[in-house]
Structures are given as structure tokens and as C-alpha cells.
């Protein structure tokens, strides 16, 4: 049995599906264990430190994997004939080294979802598939005023993925950059806008991790979240909700994909079995099964079946609409930050908390956080990544 140690598919239902539908086909047998980041990292570090252990395959988000670049074996010798993997993803999987530290496993994206009741409050002339941030603000405002309570929702809870929104959606849409123009006037506007939106945002958002629940309970009518965290709403009441692309700003319709990868730690007890499992994970059938289990999309060219669940049917088109929009502005996951990824995220969360929740002056906060960001980039010596202009040496914060 290979121990598959994962942060993904952690919700118990997904875990169950992973075990029963995705991994049951693997010959050697898989023990799929999904845990929270804390135990996940602790166990992984312990095995790496001890030099031996039970973990055969690690499955996690790009950011988590980046920490352990030194401790993963090169996976370039895995025979991937018959599957085509996105090159951009494969490049990310090298974690800034020459070796294939992880193989992309599955991808996802963030979209918007709305209760159909909300549609009648949509500002006049706005196209739901081509919303701007201003439209969104107006929409949220109308809903709040008409219904008496704010109906826009945002996953700003401790487990929420809010930082990705700032890094990959809000800032690039306004400033066309995540890092370099962190404290530019455009960035300032972006935050001002978000603050405006926040006025019409359900204050319980600071507790939300998964937007599907407030959507289902009706506390929230319009929400932004990770597709996997919206899926349940569509699966439970497919006719009540619509999915649509994230809004656009002056610099374009920025979005950030989510990438999860599988890696094999050097301490894996049975290297062969581990690699076999990695290979198994890349197979088209597995990739499709994974989609069904987790609402994460394949990273390969696996053909999607027709009988997708309601969530996939609703969310897929929204993603496509977003990624293929005229003004699409893809933002990549951070590269080369290593174990500073967490602190990088924290810069954005802190900025959010201070400006929006703490009501501190935008300018001052940006200036201060920019210093932190700059020293982080210098510490990591990480060059810029999309949408920032590639740099020599550490990515500069202007």
C-alpha cells in the first residue's frame, strides 16, 4: 500500500470519493489520507528530517509543495506517454530547479456564483459574463439596498482563499501586476474599490471558508470562490444558481488558476510504487474521476465525459468564459518563494485586514506592506512571474 498524503480533497466526502472512486483502481492499493495543513506539514517534515517514513506520495497545492523542493525526487523519468500535460504547469512543477519536483495533478479556478434571485438586481446593461468591478459594486449595492441586507459574499474566513483573490484577481485587474506595482496608485484604487464593495458585503464573510454554504442557506446571493468550494451549491440545487466569470478591471480580467501537484518525498518507503501511483494519477480515467470527486479539473488533455455532475456542468463554462475572454489576464501562482509562500500570502491578507477590516489609511498600509513584500522577495531571490514583467534578480517592488 502506498500512503498518499494530501492536503487536497480534505472534506470528508471528497476524501471518501477519492478512496472509493479514484484510487480504488490502483493495483498496489492506496491509503489516501487528507489532513489539514498543520498535521500535513508536520508529518512530512518529520519524515524528511528522520530520513525515513511512510509517505509514498504527497499531493498538495503548488504553494505547499514549493517549501520542500529539496526533498522531492525527480519525477522526469515517469513515462507519461499517452497523456499531454500543460507545459506551463510542468514548468511550475520544477519549482525553479532543473528537476521535475512534482507533476501537476489537477487544476481549478475561481469563479463567481449567483443565486438566480439576484439576477433581477443586476445593474442595467451589465452582462453577467462580462462584469466589471464597478458593475459588481453596483449590483451588490442594489441588492443590499433592496433586500435590506448585504448579499454579496466573499471567503474571508480563516480557511478562506481570500489571498488568491487579491493576488490573482483584484490587483492584476487594476494594476496589471501582483508584486511590482503593489503600492502603485492603481493598486490604491483597487483597494478603494474593494473597500466600497465590502460595504455591501455580508459581514459574516470573515467567517466564511466555503461559499457554497451561505449560498445554500440564502445568507449570500452572489459570491466569489474556488470552484471546489462552490460545487455543493450547484450539486444540491442546480436550478437555483448560475456561475459566471470574475469581473474585470481597467487592466483586464485577471484570474489565477489553482494548481495541485503530486510529488514523491526522498523518504518514501517504496519508490517504485510511489512513482507508479504518480503515473496512475496522470491517466485520463483517473483525471476524470478526480474531477468527479473533487471538482478540480484535469491538467491533461483527458476527454471529459458527458454525464458530468451539475457543478461541473455549470462551473466549466464559466471558467472557459473567463480564461478565454478578450481581456483575459492570467496571473500565475508564485514561483520560487520556497517556504516563504505563506508569508507572501500573509502580506495580502494583512493588507486586506488592515485596510478593509481595520479601516486604516490605504496609502500607509500599502507602503508598510510593500516593505515587507520587498524584503520577502529579496530573501527569496525570486524573479517576477506573470503578470509581472520578468526581472533580473529578485522581483522588485516599486
Amino acid at each position, binding site marked *: 500500500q502506498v500512503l498518499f498524503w494530501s492536503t487536497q480533497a480534505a472534506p470528508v466526502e471528497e476524501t471518501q470519493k477519492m478512496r472509493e472512486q479514484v484510487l480504488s483502481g490502483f493495483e498496489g492499493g492506496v491509503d489516501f489520507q487528507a489532513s489539514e*495543513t*498543520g498535521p500535513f*506539514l508536520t508529518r512530512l517534515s518529520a519524515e524528511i528530517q528522520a530520513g525515513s517514513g511512510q509517505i509514498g506520495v504527497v499531493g498538495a497545492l503548488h504553494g505547499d509543495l514549493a*517549501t520542500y523542493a529539496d526533498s522531492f525526487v525527480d519525477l522526469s523519468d515517469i513515462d507519461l506517454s499517452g497523456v499531454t500535460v500543460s507545459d506551463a504547469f510542468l514548468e511550475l512543477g520544477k519549482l525553479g530547479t532543473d528537476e521535475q519536483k512534482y507533476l501537476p495533478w489537477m487544476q481549478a479556478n475561481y469563479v463567481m456564483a449567483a443565486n438566480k434571485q439576484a439576477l433581477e438586481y443586476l445593474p442595467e446593461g451589465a452582462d453577467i459574463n462580462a462584469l466589471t468591478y464597478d458593475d459588481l459594486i453596483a449590483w451588490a449595492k442594489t441588492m443590499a439596498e433592496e433586500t*435590506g*441586507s448585504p448579499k454579496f459574499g466573499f471567503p*474571508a*474566513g*480563516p480557511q478562506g482563499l481570500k489571498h488568491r483573490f487579491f493576488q490573482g484577481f483584484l490587483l492584476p485587474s487594476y494594476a496589471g501586476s501582483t508584486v511590482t506595482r503593489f503600492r502603485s496608485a492603481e493598486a490604491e484604487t483597487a483597494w478603494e474599490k474593494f473597500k466600497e464593495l465590502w460595504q455591501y458585503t*455580508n*459581514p*459574516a464573510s*470573515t*467567517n466564511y471558508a466555503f461559499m457554497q454554504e*451561505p449560498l445554500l*442557506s*440564502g*445568507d449570500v446571493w452572489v459570491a466569489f470562490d474556488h470552484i471546489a468550494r462552490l460545487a455543493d451549491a450547484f450539486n444540491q440545487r442546480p436550478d437555483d444558481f448560475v456561475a459566471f466569470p470574475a469581473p474585470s478591471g481597467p487592466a483586464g480580467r485577471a484570474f489565477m488558476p489553482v494548481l495541485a501537484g503530486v510529488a514523491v518525498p526522498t523518504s518514501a518507503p517504496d519508490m517504485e510504487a510511489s512513482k507508479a501511483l504518480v503515473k496512475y494519477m496522470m491517466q485520463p480515467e483517473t483525471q476524470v474521476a478526480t474531477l468527479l470527486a473533487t471538482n478540480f479539473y484535469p491538467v491533461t488533455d483527458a476527454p471529459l465525459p458527458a454525464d458530468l455532475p451539475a457543478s461541473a456542468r455549470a462551473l466549466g463554462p464559466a471558467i472557459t468564459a473567463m480564461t478565454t475572454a478578450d481581456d483575459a489576464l492570467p496571473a500565475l501562482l508564485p514561483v520560487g518563494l520556497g*517556504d*516563504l*509562500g*505563506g*508569508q507572501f*500570502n*500573509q502580506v495580502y491578507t*494583512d493588507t486586506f*485586514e*488592515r485596510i478593509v*477590516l481595520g479601516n486604516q489609511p490605504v496609502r500607509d498600509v500599502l507602503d508598510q506592506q510593500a516593505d515587507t513584500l520587498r524584503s520577502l522577495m529579496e530573501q527569496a531571490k525570486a524573479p517576477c512571474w506573470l503578470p509581472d514583467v520578468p526581472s533580473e534578480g529578485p522581483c522588485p517592488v516599486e
Partner: protein
Amino acid sequence: MRARALPYLLLLPATLFLLVFFVYPFVEIAVLAITRDGSLSLQPLTTMATHWKFGAALGWTLLLAAIVVPIQLAMALSMATIVTKLDRGRSAFLYIFSIPLGLSDLAAGIVWLAIFEQSGFLNSMLHGLGIVDQPVLFLSYQNIWVIFIAIVLAEVWRATAIVMVILVSGMGLIPKEYYEAGEVFGASGWQRFWKITLPLLRPSLQSALILRTLAAFEVFAVVTALGGTTLPVLMGETYNWQFALQDRNVAAAYALVILGISIAATLFFLRVLRVPKGATI
């Protein structure tokens, strides 16, 4: 001499055990707080101290402990007194009172979230009574004090039983002759409680308070469940630095702060509730 060595012999297993399973890993971690990349450095401590959330986390943690612990103490004392007063159905009520003993903080957080949530039971009840027509959002970052109260309620609900059971077993050991003497000498029930029960309960109070306060300084799961990161606490920050920010040095620094206030509180209780030499039963 055997008698002189005996206490040390009795402490030996515990000491050895703690040395291996606590002190050794503890030292390994504690060192992190004052080093950076293997060399001595104050950086983790300064990073922690200058982080904008540190003050708030420390403040909220202390405030929570300062409010929760006294409430729990008062409640546990009344519950324990009630239990000792009961003659019929004592074990049934004691059982009910001690039910929360078996609950994890995780479960407690879930339970109280179900109550305070926007579409939760409290709103349902208020709605049913016609007090509100729109569900009220209790746990919002704007109502930080409501969050605080909810956390206090959840903590009180969850962890009072621990204090109570310690006190009940302590009260069981107080000979009733002292109460009788108190009664004869004019002490009302209330005065007996203050003048006899409490002083004679000092060892148990000491233990219960120390254990409870330490746990209060480590409050975390309930806070996250009810308040997200709106209400930062030390333990939450420790977690954050350890796992989200992956800076184990700063996390260790936070842990040392928790340790520091815990020891301070313990010393305080040991001092305030010490039994004078000779005043033992």
C-alpha cells in the same frame, strides 16, 4: 536515608517521562525562538513583537482568560455546591453537569456556531418569537464584542465541567464537622461557603485554576470556529506562523509567550491560594 529519598523516587517516573517526551522536544523548539538559521538572533522575538497582530492577540487572549476563568470558577463552584447539597438524583445531575467533559473544543465550536450562525438556532428562535424578521448577523467582524461573548459562552459551556469535577472531588474530602461548627457559630450558608468551603478547598482550587487558566491561554479551536481571524489569539497566531507562514522560529517565540504568561499565572495562583504551613487538615 530512605525517607528523604522517597519524594524524589516518587517524582522520578514523572520527571524521566517529561524529560524525554517534553523537555527534550521543548528545548529543541524553544531554541528556535532565539535563533535564526542556526545562529543566535533576536529576530524571531522582534518579528513577533512588532507584528501588528501581536498586541491584539495577546490582549484578546488575556482578556478572554480574565473573563472566562472567573465565570467558570463561579459556575463550577455553584454547580459543585449544588451537587453536594443534592440528596436525591445526585448522580444523575452530576452526570448531566459533567457531560461537556467529553467534548472536544472542535465540537464545542461547531455547536455554538450552529447557534450563533446567521441561519442558526438563535436567529430561528428570535424569528419564531417575532423579535426579528431578518436574521441578525451576530458573528460579524463589526460585532467583535458579540463574537467575544459567543466565544466566552462556548468556552464556559465547554470547560466548566472540568473545574467542577475537580472541585466536587475536593469538596467530598472536607469533613462535615467543619460545616456543622460553622453553622453553630452563626455562619449563614453563604458565609460557610466563603469561610469554610473555599479555604479548605484551596488545594483543589489551586489545581483547577491553574489547569483551567493554562487551557484558557491556549484557546484556539473555539475562537476560529466562531470568530475566524477577526479575533486574534496567541495560539491562533502560533498556528499561523507555524503552518501558514511556515516560520517556525516566530511560532516558537509565540509559544514562549504563552508559556511565559502561563507560568506567571501559575505563580500567581500558587501564591494567592497557598496553604500556610501547619494549616493543613
